[in-house]
């Protein structure tokens, strides 16, 4: 188990290093001169020179990369060119919206998908199964930001149960904050829950056709008992993989959904930064999101070992 964790940890660190190189190369090296990208074509030569010095562009790319990475390790993400504030502070502010939103959506996804998937698998082929799976087919196909707009139309504009957008902030009490995140979280969660429910169902059905389920039935377990006691845990491996991938979709999808609801999260930050050509901010936010994705994958792999004893010894 310790050996497994160490191996995974090594590959986690390698992935992060590789990802940071890719991000740095794509944003700071590929376009040529970041300073002229940031200031546009009509920039004055002396302003450009000043920015180049500020960004340390007179140094070699390798040195700049190392400075950037060691800064991040110490929590220093640089200073935003447009806002003139430390990027780290901006990220911390925006994370207070984005992270709760992603977790809220993930919780909803799992809470919806598990019961639906299990329920459909245990009634396989029934009218209920066929109709629920038909609904998930719709859920998979719906663009989440369009779904979000429809919800705004129905629940905010017509029924006026929720506000159409904006975020009250955590200072006004957690309930209000949660309420303003509810529509966005549902918009994110329903499509992902549809996918997860389908994965859950098919993983369960696959496991239910395994030999050991027949063995369990020969011991006197009912279908239901065989499903709960033997199939469910075995079906968790593919389900965990998908949950891991979904978290990254929820984070990225959050960027779009924040736009629909005018939420001051990382998504708004990144689009403002793109239109202001604030590369420092873009770079940092992308790195942060990739870091989150890689971390989640790492945790999923630890969860595999928790579920599957074969992994604890092998590798």
């Amino acid at each position, binding site marked *: 188990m310790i050996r497994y964790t160490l191996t995974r940890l090594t590959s986690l660190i390698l992935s992060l290093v590789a990802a940071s190189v890719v991000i740095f190369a794509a944003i700071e090296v590929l376009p040529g001169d970041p300073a002229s990208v940031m200031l546009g074509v009509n920039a004055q030569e002396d302003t450009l020179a000043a920015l180049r010095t500020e960004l340390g562009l007179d140094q070699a790319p390798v040195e700049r990369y190392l400075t950037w990475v060691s800064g991040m390790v110490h929590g220093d993400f640089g200073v935003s060119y447009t806002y003139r504030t430390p990027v780290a502070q901006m990220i911390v502010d925006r994370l207070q919206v984005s992270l709760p939103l992603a977790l809220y959506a993930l919780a909803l996804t799992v809470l919806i998908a598990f019961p639906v998937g299990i329920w459909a698998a245990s009634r396989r082929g029934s009218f209920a199964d066929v109709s629920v799976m038909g609904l998930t087919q719709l859920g998979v196909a719906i663009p989440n930001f*369009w779904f979000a*707009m429809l919800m705004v139309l129905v629940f905010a504009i017509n029924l006026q149960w929720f506000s159409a957008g904006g975020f009250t902030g955590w200072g006004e009490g957690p309930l209000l904050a949660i309420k303003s995140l509810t529509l966005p979280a549902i918009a994110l969660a329903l499509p992902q829950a549809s996918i997860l429910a389908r994965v859950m169902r098919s993983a369960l059905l696959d496991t239910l056709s395994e030999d050991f389920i027949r063995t369990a039935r020969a011991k006197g377990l009912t279908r239901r008992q065989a499903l709960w006691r033997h199939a469910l845990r075995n079906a968790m491996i593919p389900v965990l993989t998908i949950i891991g991938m979904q978290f990254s979709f929820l984070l990225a999808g959050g960027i779009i959904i924040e736009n629909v609801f005018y939420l001051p999260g990382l998504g708004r930050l990144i689009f403002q930064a793109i239109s202001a050509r604030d590369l420092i901010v873009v770079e940092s936010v992308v790195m942060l999101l990739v870091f989150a994705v890689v971390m989640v994958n790492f945790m999923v792999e630890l969860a595999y070992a928790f579920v599957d004893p074969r992994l604890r010894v092998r590798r």
Partner: protein
Amino acid sequence: MSDQSLSPVQASSTLWIALRSRSLILGLVLTLTFVAAALISFVWVPYDITTLDIANKIKGPSALHWLGTDHYGRDILSMIMQGARTSIAVAVLAVGIGMLIGVPLGLWAAARRGSLLDEVIMRTNDLVFAFPSLLIAVMITSAFGPSATNAIIAIGIFNIPVFARLTRSSALSLWQRDYILAARVAGKGAARISWEHILPNITNMMIVQGTIQFSLGILAEAGLSYVGLGAQPPTASWGRMLADSQTFISFAPHMALFPGLAILLTVLGLNLMGDGLRDLFDPKLRRGRT
């Protein structure tokens, strides 16, 4: 040697099978409708969408404009038809990039399984997988500015590891077959075996996965254009139409409704088609997976 092994829970009901083949037909009909709309738009659309008609702006559906007009008085049906072009082109090219690069990489990794090369290919795949296509698009856009090409590249890059992983894992199981051993006994090399024996046997699976990635590509393209990272005006695109409609949603919901429905129905059609094809190719899987 024994009678066919049977599990207590088995043999899917005929209800599913009937519905599945029906879903293939429904999927085909939906998909072909939008492909036809895109193709027709090259020669004919009800109204020219480059001409603005402010007098008729934000009109609901009528006999003249079946799906109404937008805030510049453009015909929404015409824009949806031309938007289908963008969506389909972006998604098809992105799937093409993913397949053309991903499949050979997967075959190569499988042929050299366990080697350093395999390890490098798969680790690189894992790395790319850590970048959702939206983030790739964000990076490309911040460096080169937004365009439909960026969307294609971003979604395409994201598709590479999808195809590489699937190819590798199915090729690995084929490499265990005795007929591969027979081909090796006949002196055939890894490249030739991959081409003659592996590729033909994974084609079906690739078609199914291609359909699914196609539908994901449509969704991703819509999302990217919605936030302004995809096709730029005057190119019509469904995601852009939705972005434009947002301001008017309280009094002109038709502007948001129809482009959204177009996305929903295209993606639904492709998914149904993918599921149906999977069942058609492999009756063993006839039980409604994801």
